[in-house]
């Protein structure tokens, strides 16, 4: 058997016991691994009505079948649990080195169950697993924790995943951070880990991930690497500028949100672009495990060094907060890594807070002297810290922009879908992306079906961003293919250069299975449908497949895309039909039967 280690590690925190069990190959064939397999096991094992922060919730941390192999970009692991932010099936993934190391230690997945009665961390040295006291590191930030746990483990090659103070304080925007700078950021997964009193997981593995067909693998890897190197985006654009190269593209297109989506064009955006990052801040590239793209940045700012911001982060702490101070953006990004917070949600919540102040909902006396206004960089950085430590108004903000705005009777000022903050694209001028936002099964998100790729970047082919034609079909295929990529443990950025056939070839070479392209894509559709079924069970409906009021009702007010508007109602009808769902957005028994669910 190739790809899989065949073992799942269960850690019962309530009883302080660990056990291993064999991976079900029957399930693995249908759900692949990562987001898929962990999602299926989550749906089978966790009742839909559990409180996400109670011991009854479980935290699945799963590698993909290609994680740790020699396939290109094989670094990803996925965290699956019930989201404390919005109750949906949370699946949040991260790169770096930790996911591959888990495979080398002999596990496809680990499951955290119950709740420890005191702070602990998990130590995994190949097959040797221990639950250890974390009293000394509880309260420490991610950087201090990573150093301390590595030291105690006694092996510098060990990889550490940890939560920061934000996760301990149960912020609904808390991330799980691995290898210092890589985060399973979204959907509040860090709070679930914090609720279980688990501070971190240290792993060191000396094993290997086998390939079922090494000769075949050599050929398909060479082929896909060639495509990645020859592709303009993965071979040149991303390696040179990082993902923040998008700042200028999205801005010049006029779909670049400004001041909590009150505007869609920023004349000063170049100050915080990938080009400026490269020219003035970049020290070196900071790649994930075996990545031929190396989009990660390592920068210097204001006498400090650390990971450089991604596109979404540069935008959210920048233009979305009316800020063009790149030092402050670096600082806010670094604080999020250090304190264990999701940059998109935190920046979006600060931006919403700024608008709540602008419109008089939040009173000056609630701010304890810390400015919360568009354009105030120093205040913005301080609010990141206050959110992590739930200080003053920071405690309300730590619950996310929706809960914050709702507490002032103005939920419409939260730029979120299903309570999760939207990323850096105004959907009114990008029809497919509007549909993708509205139907994302983890709430506001760009990486569940990245329609920006065909609609703006022209990959794999250029679609008219304002047209509805074919968008429901494209969105469904992108969502299903993304679920496949998330389930096999590769980076979504590989898909700028690779297509379904490449992924099928890689999976078959590693596993020895014989998926056709259609069968592999059906795995993605199966994953999408079990996620949808969970969300319906917790009470979501077609009415939640929507956008925030401002984006739903008003056209883009200014800039190059002035006047543009989504046509979500029409697209949703087409989309439900395309998915084989009924008019209420519920998967039909026929479609579920066809998918073997």
């Amino acid at each position, binding site marked *: 058997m190739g790809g899989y280690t065949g073992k799942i590690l269960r850690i019962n925190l309530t009883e302080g016991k660990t056990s291993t069990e064999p991976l079900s190959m029957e399930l693995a064939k249908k759900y692949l691994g990562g987001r898929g397999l962990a999602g299926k096991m989550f749906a089978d094992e966790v009742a839909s009505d559990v409180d996400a922060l109670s011991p009854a919730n479980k935290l699945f941390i799963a590698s993909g079948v290609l994680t740790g192999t020699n396939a290109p970009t094989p670094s990803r692991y996925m965290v699956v649990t019930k989201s404390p932010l919005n109750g949906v099936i949370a699946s949040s993934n991260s790169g770096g080195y930790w996911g591959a190391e888990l495979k080398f230690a002999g596990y496809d997945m680990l499951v955290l169950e119950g709740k420890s009665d005191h702070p602990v961390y998990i130590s995994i040295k190949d097959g040797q697993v221990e639950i250890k006291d974390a009293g000394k590191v509880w309260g420490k930030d991610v950087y201090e924790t990573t150093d301390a746990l590595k030291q105690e483990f006694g092996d510098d090659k060990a990889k550490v995943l940890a939560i920061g103070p934000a996760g301990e304080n149960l912020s609904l925007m808390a991330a799980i951070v691995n290898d210092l700078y890589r985060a399973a950021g979204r959907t509040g997964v860090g709070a679930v880990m914090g609720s279980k009193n688990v501070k971190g997981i240290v792993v060191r593995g000396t094993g290997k991930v086998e390939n079922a067909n090494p000769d075949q693998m050599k050929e398909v890897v060479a082929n896909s690497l060639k495509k990645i190197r020859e592709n303009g985006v993965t071979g040149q654009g991303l390696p040179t500028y990082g993902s923040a190269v*998008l700042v200028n593209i999205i801005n010049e297109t*006029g779909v670049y949100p400004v001041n909590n989506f009150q505007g869609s064009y920023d004349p000063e955006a170049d100050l915080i672009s990938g080009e400026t990052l490269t020219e003035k801040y970049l020290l070196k590239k900071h790649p994930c495990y075996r990545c031929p793209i190396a989009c990660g940045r390592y920068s210097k700012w204001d006498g400090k060094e650390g990971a450089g911001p991604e*596109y979404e982060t540069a935008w959210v702490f920048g233009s979305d907060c009316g800020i063009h101070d790149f030092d402050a953006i670096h600082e806010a990004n670094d604080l999020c890594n250090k304190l264990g917070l999701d940059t998109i949600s935190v920046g979006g919540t600060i931006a919403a807070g700024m608008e709540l102040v602008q419109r008089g909902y939040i009173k000056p006396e609630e701010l304890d002297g810390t400015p919360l206004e568009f354009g105030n960089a120093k205040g913005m950085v301080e609010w990141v810290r206050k959110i992590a430590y739930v200080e003053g108004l920071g405690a309300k903000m730590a619950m996310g922009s929706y809960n914050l705005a709702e507490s002032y009777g103005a939920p419409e000022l939260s730029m979120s879908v299903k309570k999760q903050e939207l990323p850096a694209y105004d959907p009114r001028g990008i029809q497919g992306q509007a549909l993708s936002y509205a139907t994302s099964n983890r709430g506001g998100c760009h990486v569940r079906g990245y329609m920006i790729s065909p609609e703006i970047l022209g990959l794999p082919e250029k679609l008219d961003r304002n047209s509805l034609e074919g968008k429901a079909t494209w969105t469904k295929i992108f969502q299903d293919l993304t679920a496949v990529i998330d389930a096999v443990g590769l980076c979504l950025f590989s898909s700028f250069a690779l297509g379904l056939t490449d992924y099928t070839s890689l999976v078959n070479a590693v596993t020895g299975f014989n998926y056709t392209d259609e069968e592999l894509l059906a795995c993605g559709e199966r994953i999408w449908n079990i996620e949808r079924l969970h969300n319906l069970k917790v009470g979501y409906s077609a009415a939640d497949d929507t956008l925030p009021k401002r984006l739903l009702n008003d056209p883009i007010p200014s800039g*190059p895309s002035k006047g543009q508007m989504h046509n979500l109602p029409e697209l949703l009808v087409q989309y439900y039909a395309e998915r084989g769902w009924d008019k209420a957005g519920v998967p039909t028994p026929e479609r579920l039967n066809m998918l073997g669910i």
Partner: protein
Amino acid sequence: MRVTVKLFATFRDGRFKVEEKNLSEDSRVLDVLQLLNILPEEVAICLVNGRDVKEQHLLNDGDTIALFPPVGGG
């Protein structure tokens, strides 16, 4: 006529970020590319006033042209 030309990513190397250009009437995007010594096949995204266009697109006085090589992210 007068247009604003904005260059991004590697197109800035040895050129500029933003410049105003005087062009003869009936100029097309292709004329701007020739002026800047950029081959049409090097261009991944060409926006005129935020709209995607091809190199044969006819320009108007006051247009803003934004040119990008293949880049992406997310």
